[in-house]
């Protein structure tokens, strides 16, 4: 079976190479037969890589321990879901999973019913296939998951018990899907550059892919944070670990990209910037994939030091230099069609938001690779820790949140300041009142107060905007308010989906602010019967017991929780040692409410003594992070939901016009001292989706 998997990959490589040539020659020679064959080739690649994945899955499920990968990551007692999750548990398997996702997405792109972007498909498919070829080469020659041992172990090593948690089932696939899905917009961007179809066509063609990639990546990060919080058990959810950063950076740049393509569609500006952003996003996705397996940076995630580093670096180099070079060649075709008219405009907020997001990503990048740079420059490794990242990114993210609030009430092109003040009055007042209330209730930290105020402001601006929209619709259509509300969302799904996503982000921010500024922790050793008090809780240690289950030995401590004299319940942090795995796992106990989490870690004890050590933490508002995540998902899905709309003008012609004019101008350059600025074609935004 394993051999079948390897052969399938080999055949997939051949099919991919064939398809690349067929697409290129089919497109250049305008041969429909060749193009059709190439498209079939893409589907064949998908089928073959799927066979390969199934082969690995089969080996995992049937416990074929002679396959080295199966022996390394599974054992006979693992349940079915975790056997499947072993597909991405190890380096080789996760590369195969990457290749499979890309092949599937490529097939979907090929089969998608397409209004926009048909002409872009051949070269876009070529880019997708070239990326696929890279991963197939890695799999076939450097990281083969189907290697057989020359003996058959009687038992596998099993999955590290820390990984046997629902997070393992969702976090890697979500992240990997996000990384892989960003290949599609990148492929269409490169195709647009190659074919000189540089209007909005490529953006329209990939809007849903971009959204989906962004959603997968964002949720993958959030699930990872949740998993760290409930399983790794240090009381936190984000440590600015290099691999965490590696998946945050493409998401930040991807967020900037999502916003600035809206600007291109509305006003025809920022075309070069959009290209740069998607190139960066894709490069960072590959970089993120690389970071987990290079051994360059010490991290809790890093797979063992492997020889793959140079391959990835070369690939990223090709991507960056190739696409940026192509961009430079085509820059004449990407002139803006309009100007930025006013600092007080929605364009302005989007622009600042872009600067801040890319700035944050850059700061995170610097901080992450700093040890490598400092070692190269000064011969000594200098690391920057969590405090640096928090201090730099805190203000940036707050500013971004503020912009999210401002943008919904500022008009395009130019907004009058007085109009602005009127729009912001009620949300500002409401937010101030809320901040005052929080202050009265005891919150005194100025930074936290400011942050809460901004979050409240954004929430109120969005709700105010919804209220006004609903009221207008109610007045115009005489629908009742409820129907008007849902009708409003249904008729403007991208817009209201976006608002819902903003609400989700603000909720996540509230969770982060609460748990960062107001968390309390205590370490204590208790004998049975002794108590400790923290925040409003009193915890009394009852007993510590040991018992055996079929697969592990469990040490569990029981404490009673009381607050204000009232008994709330019991809580049981524990540690367990699996029979076949030489590592203990601490299971934290969390008592969660919307206000705060009571979080208890069983630290340890001396043998033969009943005294037991605990770390007790109270984390306020953490639950809002997960609530925000669910709302973010909902908003993203609403935004992606298909909606009947007229297709906007492609504007390829306008781009061609611009390029021709630039060409004319350049050839008349001698003798002229004045250069006119960008061609203004008066793209109208009135009447378009507001």
């Amino acid at each position, binding site marked *: 079976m394993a051999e079948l998997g390897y052969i399938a990959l080999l055949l997939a490589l051949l099919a991919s190479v064939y398809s690349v040539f067929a697409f290129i020659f089919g497109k250049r020679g305008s041969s429909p037969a060749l193009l059709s064959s190439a498209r079939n080739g893409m589907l064949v690649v998908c089928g073959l890589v799927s066979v390969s994945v199934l082969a690995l899955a089969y080996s995992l499920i049937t416990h074929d321990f002679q396959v080295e990968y199966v022996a390394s990551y599974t054992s006979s007692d693992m349940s079915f879901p975790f056997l499947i999750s072993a597909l991405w548990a190890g380096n080789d398997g996760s590369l195969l999973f990457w290749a499979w996702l890309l092949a599937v997405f490529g097939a979907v792109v090929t089969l998608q019913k397409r209004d926009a972007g048909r002409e872009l498909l051949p070269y876009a498919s070529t880019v997708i296939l070239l990326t696929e070829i890279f991963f197939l080469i890695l799999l076939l020659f450097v990281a083969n998951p189907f290697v057989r041992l020359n003996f058959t172990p009687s038992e596998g090593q099993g999955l*590290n018990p820390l990984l046997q948690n629902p997070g393992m089932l969702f976090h890697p696939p979500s992240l990997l899907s996000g990384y892989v899905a960003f290949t599609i917009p990148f492929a269409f961007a490169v195709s647009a550059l190659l074919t000189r179809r540089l209007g909005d066509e490529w953006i329209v063609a990939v809007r849903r892919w971009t959204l989906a990639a962004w959603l997968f990546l964002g949720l993958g990060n959030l699930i990872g944070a949740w998993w760290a919080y409930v399983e790794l058990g240090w009381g936190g959810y984000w440590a600015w670990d290099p691999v965490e950063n590696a998946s945050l950076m493409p998401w930040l740049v991807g967020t900037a990209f999502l916003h600035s393509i809206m600007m291109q569609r509305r006003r025809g500006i920022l075309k070069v910037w959009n290209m740069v952003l998607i190139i960066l996003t894709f490069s960072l996705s590959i970089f993120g994939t690389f970071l987990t397996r290079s051994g360059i940076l010490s991290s809790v*995630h890093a797979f063992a030091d492997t020889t793959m580093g140079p391959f990835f670096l070369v690939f990223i180099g090709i991507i960056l230099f190739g696409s940026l070079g192509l961009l430079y060649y085509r820059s004449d075709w990407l002139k803006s069609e309009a100007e930025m008219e006013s*600092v007080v405009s929605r364009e302005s907020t989007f622009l600042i938001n872009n600067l801040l997001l890319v*700035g944050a990503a850059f700061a995170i990048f610097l901080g992450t690779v700093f040890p490598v740079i400092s070692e190269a420059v000064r011969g000594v490794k200098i*690391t920057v820790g969590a405090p640096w990242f928090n201090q730099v990114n805190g203000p940036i993210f707050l500013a971004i949140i503020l912009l999210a609030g401002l943008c919904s009430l500022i008009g395009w092109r130019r907004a009058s300041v007085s109009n602005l003040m009127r729009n912001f009055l009620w949300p500002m007042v409401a937010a101030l009142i809320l901040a005052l209330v929080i202050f009265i209730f005891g919150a005194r930290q100025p930074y936290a107060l400011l942050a809460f105020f901004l979050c409240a402001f954004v929430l109120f601006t969005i709700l105010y905007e919804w209220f006004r929209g609903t009221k207008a619709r109610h007045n115009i259509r005489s629908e009742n308010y409820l129907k008007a509300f849902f009708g409003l969302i249904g008729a403007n799904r991208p817009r209201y989906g976006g608002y819902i996503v903003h609400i989700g982000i603000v909720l996540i921010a509230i969770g982060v602010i609460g748990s960062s500024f107001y968390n309390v922790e205590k370490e204590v050793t208790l004998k049975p019967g002794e108590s400790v008090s923290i925040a409003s809780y009193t915890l009394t240690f009852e007993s510590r017991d040991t018992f055996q289950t079929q697969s592990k030995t469990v040490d569990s401590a029981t404490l009673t929780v009381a607050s204000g004299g009232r008994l709330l319940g019991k809580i049981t942090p524990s540690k367990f040692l699996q029979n076949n*795995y030489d590592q203990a796992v601490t299971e934290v106990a969390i008592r969660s409410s919307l206000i705060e989490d009571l979080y208890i870690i069983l630290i*340890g004890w*001396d043998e033969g003594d009943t005294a037991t050590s605990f*770390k007790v933490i109270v984390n306020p508002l953490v639950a809002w992070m997960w609530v925000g995540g669910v709302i973010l998902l909902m908003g993203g899905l609403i935004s992606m939901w298909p909606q009947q709309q007229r297709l906007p003008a492609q504007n390829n012609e306008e781009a061609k016009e611009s390029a021709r004019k630039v060409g004319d101008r350049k050839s008349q350059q001698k003798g002229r001292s004045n250069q006119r600025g*960008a061609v203004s074609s008066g793209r109208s935004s009135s009447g378009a989706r507001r």
Partner: protein
Amino acid sequence: MFKKKRFLIGGIIILLALGYLGYTSFAGAATYYYKVNEVLAKGSSVIGSNLRVEGHVPLDSVVRESAGRLIKFPITDNTSGQSIPVVYQGVVPDTFKAGNDVVVEGVLGSDGTFLAQTIMTKCPSKYEPVTQ
């Protein structure tokens, strides 16, 4: 596209602000990363400053006291065999185990003992056979 200078100025201001933020936060957060023998070679010049030290924890060398809240172990250099005694108070990560490589972050005291605030490990036993 940016006809008005104020866009350019605004953008530059934002970038400068970010740069300033990054620079000022750096002073307090920069941490040197050394191997064990490098720390010993530097001697007293690194006492008192925040460091990360990478090394190996020998088998059977970990002493746990205070009902699990304090652990002591030597961190040794992989090549030269030199070691520094480490004392750590707090929650020990599950993946910490004698016989593996580890990175500790903390401060070297004048008595030569390293007071660790953080212990970082990799997921070691994934790639080595479980020694039964």
